[in-house]
């Protein structure tokens, strides 16, 4: 009996861990799920399913004041019909929904990357931030919760924080 329990406990733990690692990034948030579905429909492409472990790790090593981090990556998308830019932005705002306020937009002219950052209030003393980075073939969508102190850092230097977010999204694509 004891041997059986010794065997079962690690097995169950492994299963739980595997479940967490392979879970789609957006599974826990219905609204984020719907947003991903809308982007998916827009690009006629499903997001990569193998980045659950990235979200798992990210939620344990997020910077101070950041929580509930979720991310999806759309690989090999075709942006030729609606390349990211000014016109694309209004379409993206419809997808994102009116509750999010456009906050920062970063355009890396050389690489053609566009990063759109939206924010909104989320319950008591919390903010949500949505970051969408798109280049000619990939899109990264990140959502996170911020404490007021973390939002204050954004307000103190939105230009620098916007640039940093673009870099983080680019790193996520590389990884």
């Amino acid at each position, binding site marked *: 009996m004891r041997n059986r329990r010794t065997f079962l406990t690690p097995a169950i733990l492994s299963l739980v861990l595997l479940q967490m690692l392979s879970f789609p990034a957006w599974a826990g948030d219905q609204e984020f799920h719907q947003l991903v579905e809308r982007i998916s429909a827009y690009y006629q492409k499903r997001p990569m399913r193998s980045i659950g472990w990235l979200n798992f790790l990210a939620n344990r090593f997020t910077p101070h004041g950041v929580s509930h981090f979720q991310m999806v990556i759309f690989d090999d998308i075709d942006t030729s019909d609606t390349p990211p830019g*000014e016109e694309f932005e209004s379409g993206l705002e419809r997808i994102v929904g009116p509750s999010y*306020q*456009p*906050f*920062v*937009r*970063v*355009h*890396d*002219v*050389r690489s053609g990357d566009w990063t759109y950052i939206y*924010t*909104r*209030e989320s319950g008591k*003393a919390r*903010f949500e931030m949505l970051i969408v980075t798109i280049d000619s073939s990939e899109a990264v969508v990140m959502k996170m919760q911020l404490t*007021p102190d973390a*939002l*204050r850092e954004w*307000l*103190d*230097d*939105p*230009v620098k924080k*916007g*640039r940093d977010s673009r870099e983080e999204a680019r790193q996520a694509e590389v990884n």
Partner: protein
Amino acid sequence: MNVTYKKISTKTSLTLFAVALLSTFSLPALGQNPRLDIKNLEALAKKASEVVDVNLDAPLLKLATKFMTDEDDREGLEVIKNLKGVYVKSFTFDKPGDYSPADVEAIRSQLQGPAWSRIVSAQSKHEGENTEIYLMTGADGGKVLGMAIIDVEPTELTVVNIVGPIDIDKLSQLEGKMGIPRLGEEDKESSQKPAGHHEKP
């Protein structure tokens, strides 16, 4: 019946005309808008290596003020709470000379109207930096309705547009925040004019 209808119609038209005329006179600063068109500076964007836009509309500013509860935030809160928006556009260039003074004129040309006045022009000859501050005042010349800051550096150009009533004595509360550059650094050879002295660009 037709005559009555015509009388009412004429009266209504006259009233509407009067209202329209009054609205024209009461428009801020002789019909000019304190919100600059900084989103479409395409000529500059094409020359830049990176362009960053910051958009702090009234709802976002309101959101920010809800959590400015520290004692240190009190004066900043006083400045922000009446603002309608803060908009920043920052261009980064690979090397000096990638943009010309003529490119900056695209921005300055929007500040040529009678309601806009340049109140500060600070230059640093050694570092090639130049900061200009413009104010938009109401028709009576008193109330500040908006502000524009043009910060020119060899490889960076930042345009800030603050929309809404601002107490310029408290502007320092916003320096280094919300994408607004730090102003009045000691190493700059400042040609600042007193706040009351309005200089045309």
